[in-house]
């Protein structure tokens, strides 16, 4: 009788241990996924940052006296690439950069020669592509953060999170009001 009870207890303990290990490993995997997703955002942001100097130089050739606009872009880029920013501050800096870039690209409407410049057009296209990629990277990152938070706040993730350390809530990389498109509501 004692052997049977002992055997059942051993099986239950083994199952419990397996469940806890599995849950903890899932937490680790999800945390790593948020980090990998953030790295993707970082790559896309760097790609955009690298395009900006050429874009500014291209615009300067046709619209040199729009100094304020050009300098605003350079300054916003400086803040965004300055380093040491947290996720929320980085998102705000990128929003500011996006807003100043919008004003720079709008110059093309006032300066037909600038608009017709093939190099400027190519850069503009590359910038658009880079921004699309940033948008998707942001979606993936936020999705990873959401999965991680759900796992952290669910049982037994909420108990296990404190054991190994290094587990805590992550910031969402949210689009600011400047870059958010108006939501189009369609009634099916």
């Amino acid at each position, binding site marked *: 009788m004692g052997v049977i009870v002992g055997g059942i207890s051993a099986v239950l303990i083994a199952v419990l241990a397996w469940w806890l290990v599995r849950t903890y490993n899932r937490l680790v*995997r999800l945390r790593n996924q948020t980090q990998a997703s953030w790295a*993707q955002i970082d790559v896309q942001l760097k790609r955009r940052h690298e395009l900006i100097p050429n874009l500014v130089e291209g615009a300067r050739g046709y619209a040199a006296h729009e100094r304020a606009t050009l300098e605003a872009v350079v300054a916003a880029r400086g803040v965004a690439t300055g380093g040491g920013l947290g996720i929320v501050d980085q998102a705000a800096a990128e929003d500011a950069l996006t807003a100043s870039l919008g004003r720079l690209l709008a110059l093309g409407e006032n300066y037909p020669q600038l608009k017709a410049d093939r190099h400027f057009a190519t850069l503009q296209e590359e910038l658009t592509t880079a921004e699309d990629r940033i948008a*998707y990277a942001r*979606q993936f990152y936020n*999705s*990873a953060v*959401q999965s991680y938070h759900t796992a952290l706040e669910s049982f037994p993730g909420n108990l296990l999170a404190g054991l190994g350390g290094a587990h805590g809530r992550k910031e969402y990389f949210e689009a600011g009001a400047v870059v958010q498109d108006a939501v189009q509501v*369609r009634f099916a």
Partner: protein
Amino acid sequence: MTFEAELYWSGAGLIALWLAAFGIALAATRNGAVEAAPATQEFGPEPESPAVVALLANRWRSVDRAAAATLLDLAARGLLELRQPADDPAHSTVHLTGKDAADLTPYERRVLARVAERAGETGAPIGAIAFRGEERAKAWNGALRQEIVVEARRRGLSRTRFAPLLATALFMTLFAPGALFGVAAVSGGHGIRGALAVAVLPALPLMWLLARSLGERATPRGLERAGHWAGVQAWLHAHEEFAPLPPAAVTVWDRYLGYGTALGVTSRAGRLLGFDAGDKRRVWSSYGGTWRPVRIRYPRLRPGFGATTARLLQLACAAGVVAVGLYLFAVLRQPDWAVTTGPDADHSLRRPGLLLSAGWVGIALLGVLVAGRFGRWTLFVAFLALMPGNFGSAHGWLGHAMDRSGLLVGETVAIVSFGALAAYYLTLAVLERRAPHTVTGEVLRMEPRRRESAPRFLALDTGDADRTVAWALPPEAPAVAPGSVVRLAVSPATRAVRSADVVTG
């Protein structure tokens, strides 16, 4: 060794040689290993379409999920729109946007055409995209695969597994062993039919092997791109929230949803967008004005389903014969039938259960004979049916049953049941003589039966109910294509279709 024996052995040797050559050809043309790239969200420059990615992800063997992935990709590119009006993604609808479709590939046009056929101008539930029959779904998907393969070859990602010369050589040589067997059979004095059979038989399995292995294989460029897409797959797999995304999530995830479906990551979206034969029991129909799911019941076990008056009378006779037979057997049998007799007999019971079983099974066989259902397995089944009685006798059971005079309880139940069945068939036969009813509606499905002589199921939506019971289309009547609107003259009692007129094809 005789000349014939030499020929047979030579043929066997040729088969071994052919198999060896075939094995070498298979080994030489197998796909190399795909080296998965690091997990990435990048599609790369000029990415392949999701349909081609599905071919690569399925190791060049099939294009599973390609049609669903293409639909999602068309939605991401604005040619289609997916809307989810409620919580259940299965009720999502697909709509044409009217955007210019000039630059589409043939397989994209095929998918778009299928959606347009179902959606029209008002849209359709995604479940309505499925085909309502195996054959059409198979033909459509076969053509889709061909078009995708053409595109993959154009991009240098795929090629035929065997070069034409090799395929021809393998095909021609697979007849050589059979030829030797045929000559051996003729010279051994066998008739020409026997010789032909011996000549053809060895070629059939070899031909099957060859046909199975014909197909596509990777090019070096294809393996490289497959590795890249394996990296995308790993990236998408790592995002747990991606797998259960519904089709309407394409609004947020754009082309990622299509690629995720092609790579087998977004299983839910792929499952809901089935370009297959669809669910036999639940079909979306717009007959009557609005789209709604119609549940179909197929009365497989209903007695007299689709039977003619003559057939019903025959079945009534069969059931009556069994009922009367069982009654007579119960009344006329004597306890001493199962007692050993003769000069040395001790008057002990000999297998009373077997005797009872033999009587019952014999009567059942008579009923089967009258019903015209005597087949090649009937006697075998009858033999098996005797076994429980024999087993019971061996263990001393059923002895008392044989001793008793009159009806056993089981016999009474069987007699009443078969009597009722005979009465039921007779009633159906009378009802069958009444004037037929007329029903008009859209054919939802045509389902064949395993027995070719049995009536086929014809599921019709009359537009006034969400449930329907299939009608019985006689085997000799021409098939009606699903989607046609037909006017049927039917007998409600047997659900037999007496005549069918196609209103719109």
